[in-house]
């Protein structure tokens, strides 16, 4: 578990002592990353702002319970993800949660790339614009169940360690590893289902 930085701890302590400016500095430090994280749960800019705002307001209220042995950022991630999922539930966009695919997990034949005859996943075509790749990746992410999307987002975009992901999601490192494995297989399957042209020529 990554410990909170000394600077974060100082700002947390000052905030708890009633210093509004210190909390403002904490928000400024993490607001961009929170906006980037929450965009994986909704594309609506107003909703993103509302969710991030609620995340920081909840963080302020719960600051006395912040365990200073953990990273302020991973603690904030946990609040943000829960706020985003609660929001989706409230507006009727029930995220697909708790989906584990036992068939995919248990069958080595279903495992990404384990069959020599299976469709391989190529890297993005060099002719594709970076923005186009980003757009395709975001669409594919939105199509996979939330449980897999979240673990991919934390690893591939937030670049958290397995231990930090375990900390954010409240699961073991072993579960992080197996969930990431399944999430990548799902991502690949969905990418090739939406864009079969990317799989051509790799069999």
């Amino acid at each position, binding site marked *: 578990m990554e410990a909170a930085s000394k600077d974060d701890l100082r700002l947390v302590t000052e905030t708890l002592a009633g210093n509004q400016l210190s909390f403002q500095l904490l928000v400024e430090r993490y607001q961009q990353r929170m906006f980037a994280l929450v965009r994986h749960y909704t594309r609506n800019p107003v909703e993103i702002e509302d969710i991030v705002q609620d995340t920081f307001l909840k963080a302020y209220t719960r600051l006395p319970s912040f365990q200073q042995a953990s990273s302020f950022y991973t603690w904030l991630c946990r609040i943000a993800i829960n706020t985003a999922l609660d929001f989706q539930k409230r507006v009727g966009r029930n995220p697909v949660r708790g989906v584990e695919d036992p068939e995919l997990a248990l069958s080595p034949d279903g495992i990404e790339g384990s069959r020599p005859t299976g469709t391989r996943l190529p890297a993005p075509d060099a002719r594709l614009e970076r923005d186009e790749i980003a757009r395709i990746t975001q669409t594919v992410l939105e199509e996979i169940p939330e449980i897999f999307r979240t673990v991919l987002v934390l690893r591939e975009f937030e670049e958290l360690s397995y231990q930090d992901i375990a900390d954010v999601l409240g699961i073991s490192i072993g579960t992080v590893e197996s969930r990431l494995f399944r999430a990548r297989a799902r*991502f690949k399957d969905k990418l090739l289902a939406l864009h079969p042209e990317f799989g051509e020529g790799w069999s």
Partner: protein
Amino acid sequence: MEFTCKEAVPMIGAYLDGELSPASAALLRPHLLECPACRNSTADGRALQRWFTPLRESASAPAVPSGFAARVARRAVAGDTGERSAPAAQEGKLLPFVLRLTAVAAAVTLMLALGVRLRSRPDAGSLSADDRKPLSMSQIQSELDRLNGVVPVEPAANETTPAEGRAARAKKRGIQEQR
């Protein structure tokens, strides 16, 4: 002991992420040298990472509105807990309406319940809410005798035979009927 593809494949992601323990990595590496299928899986894993890079580095990440941090800090200190929905436009109208409706329904139900309960209570008359003290047996007897114009009986006469008791009760009933 043979290290199989079934064991190797789930490790490849952690290996590429630099999260595999040295002991597990020492098992995986020789297998990758021998197994083309698992080498393909490793190549696929690397290819997958390249699909994520552009979105991670994308300039299209939503811009933070100016003054956001100051606004949030002000609201936090003012006591806004954030423990609420971030309402969508429709929900913003619907939820308060449903809450108000529920509150009104609850108030009406309470008033009805109180009304029904009050109505089902016996009224003062039927409760015989007479603040006079109840009469003793001897007082009743003397009252009966007074009404019938006979002399009062001794208190010992309370110990009546069954026949006398019946007669007294009949006499009492007669008085009640007269009333």
